[in-house]
């Protein structure tokens, strides 16, 4: 166990624990965007920053990645922390003017409008990379990736073409914090990332449920007969 202080309050934490987890457990409010319970974080959004004083040195760090240390002093609401959070939120509000979550967080931090010309072409994507990691690390198909660098960096399947490996599971839609990824279903066809998937019809209730492609993939990787999978979850 290590002892540290958050906003002046003494707190103990397990060795190797990340500051964000410890602070949240102790009831301190730290906003996050790119952090996810299942995937941890890569410190992309920089919203969860806190100020730490470690051996006399003041730093602003991403709390999701900063391991606790004995004697650390943490401030979750200092001027520098507020500056970085407001900077990040104003920049994101300009990038993703239609993203409700960003609007909400920005308002919470006193930003009603960004001082920049809003982008029209970025949708709601904040480049948190969660969809990419979810597709790779949880689903296991790696259909998505980041491409380009700097202002033109974007997320999607390779070359923006319908991906050969995508199974249409929609996990990326679920994990996306801002609702950028669009998945549509109509007349037994699911469309996601420009790729169309025929949906399986449950032989019992005659309703469409999951993409046949996804069921085949599950059947192959988990060794479950297709006939079993064709029955929807409600009817199984």
């Amino acid at each position, binding site marked *: 166990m290590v002892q540290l202080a958050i906003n002046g309050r003494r707190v103990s934490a397990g060795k190797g624990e990340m500051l964000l987890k410890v602070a949240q457990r102790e009831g301190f409010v730290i906003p996050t965007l790119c952090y996810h319970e299942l995937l941890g974080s*890569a*410190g*992309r*959004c*920089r*919203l969860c*920053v806190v100020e730490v004083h470690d051996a006399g040195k003041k730093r*602003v*760090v*991403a709390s999701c*990645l*900063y*391991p606790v240390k004995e004697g650390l002093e943490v401030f979750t609401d200092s001027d*520098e922390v507020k*500056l*970085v959070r*407001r*900077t*990040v939120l104003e*920049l*994101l509000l*300009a*990038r993703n003017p239609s993203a409700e979550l960003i609007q909400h967080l920005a308002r919470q931090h006193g930003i009603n409008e960004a*001082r*920049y*010309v809003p982008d029209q072409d970025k949708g709601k994507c*904040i*480049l948190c990379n969660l969809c990419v990691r979810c597709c790779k690390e949880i689903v296991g198909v790696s259909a998505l990736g*980041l491409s*380009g*660098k*700097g*202002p*033109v*960096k974007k997320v999607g399947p390779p070359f923006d073409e319908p991906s050969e490996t995508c199974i249409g599971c929609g996990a990326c839609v679920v994990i996306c914090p801002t609702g950028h990824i669009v998945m549509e279903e109509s007349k037994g066809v699911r469309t996601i990332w420009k790729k169309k998937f025929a949906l399986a019809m449950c032989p019992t209730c005659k309703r469409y449920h999951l993409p046949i492609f996804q069921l085949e993939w599950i059947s192959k990787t988990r060794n479950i007969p297709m006939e079993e999978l064709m029955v929807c979850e409600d009817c199984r």
Partner: protein
Amino acid sequence: MPLSLEQLDAVGLKFKEKERAFEKIIRVCCGTGCITSGANRLLESLRSAVEREGLSSRILVKKTGCHGLCERGPIVTLGKDEILYQTVGKRDLDRDVELLLKTATEGKIADLLLLKAPGKKEKFVSPLEIPFYKGQKRVVLEMNGVINPEEIDDYIAHGGYRAPFKAFQMTQEKIIDCISASGLRGRGGGGFPTGRKWHSAYEADGQMKYLLANGDEGDPGAFMDRSLMEGNPHAIIEGMIIGGYAIGSNKGYIYVRDEYPLAVSRLSRAIEQAQNYGILGRNVFGSDFEFDVEIFRGGGAFVCGESTALMSSVEGRAGEPRDKYVHTVEQGLWAKPTNLNNVETWANVPSIINEGLEWYTSIGTKQSKGTKIFSLVGKVNNTGLIEVPMGITLRQIIFDLGGGIRGRRRFKAVQTGGPSGGCIPEQYLDMPVDFDSLASIGSMMGSGGMIVMDERDCMVDVARYFLQFLMEESCGKCTPCREGTRRMYEILDRICKGEGKIEDLMHLEELGRGLQWGAICGLGQTAPNPVLSTIRYFSDEYKAHIIEGRCPAGVCKDITTFTIMEDKCTGCMRCAAECPVGAVVGERKAPQTINDMLCITCGICYDVCPFDAVKIS
């Protein structure tokens, strides 16, 4: 079989004797700069001329690495610091080859090829007389321009590869202590104490440890690392052997950007030669220490010069940095303890071991020891590569070595530290150049880029230029850097177009601080430097753009017009002759006028007018 110290000495001696058999050695600089000016062609012609004249046994034509005075290339030297010829073969190859042979055989100095002092009649014969070289202290670059970088024997003949023998007599801790006591700090820009880094890497747990040499030089206009890798590749390898032994690593990578094909080829050759001599491999110099070096060619992203992005790139992933809350000396390449130093840092190591602490610590200032290589570019008379002792003043560099500002203009600012360095105004010219002084005035040492600017450089435009570079080179991982550099660029672009608002200045400063505190890596954290330092020292220029809608330097096209003052114009027609679009009209010996409809505001008329009759408004 690995070489013993005696065998090494014998190799060196044999090489020296071979060279001593010649009456004269003509050294042709074959660095990238001189090659683009025709050095390869010159080398070939010279060699065949020597053969044709039957002088092969008397004259040795040798290729060397960069001499630094790239602007005057191809550079040729004769003897040891006897004669330096410049722009050889550039205008008349056959004539110059003949002149060279005459010098070599008859000792007749070719006046035509000597370097002239700017604006003076005086000509220099020996490189030691040339102010550009006089103020330098060459430690790392000492062998550049002397040895043939493609011949390991030449390096050995000049004392190369002796340091590992000395190091192997010492304990690992002793070597690290020695590097710590030398005060050597990271030459890649950070200035982190090298000894302390080595110590952490040495202490780190793990069987497998890696060494990295960072040669991913990406600053626009900088070529320090390139010239070192091309001109003296063995010094880097020798430094790495000592580092590997001290830290306990058996594997090193040299990360070279692929845009440096000559550096890649010379380093590859050097590694191969070292392997053949048993200097690299299973038993380095017959000891039980195993060490090998491999080259990794970088794909060209600027951010890959950042240590964690570089490691990511070596691992085969996209060059994105990560937070270094767990240091790379503990978890670096493939999550193993990794010690990364810049190639220039590595090349400092052999001389520290060879020459000793007393000698090394006598060079430089209290906090910054040794020398630093800079690439001096911009509006100075002598542009090129210089190695100077730490603590030299900016004024000495710019006005003594650099020969002052070109033409009749005045110095305005010097930008140090690469694209994310700061612009330093005239009032700080007498400041010593070292890590801490530069940081204290909002700039940095960086890897050693130094761009000199004069009155015709607009500081807002300069900030915009660097922000555009940084915006494009941002990896895009973290929000502050990806979005912040882009928005800073947008604001600066607006100011340059005369559409700025006074509150933009506060906004830029606020956004800049947001990046400094919030970005993941050095690129984003230092990206605001060019903006913040120009606002700090040149706020008048910003205000002129925003409030008065004019660019005092006459650079920002949208808010600049050039007019000719009737009372000053003599009608010499110089501007009319130079104007690329024929916008200057008028009779000879009568005042000229500029046709605004045609004018593209390039400012050539302003620059060439001998009577200062062109006005910026």
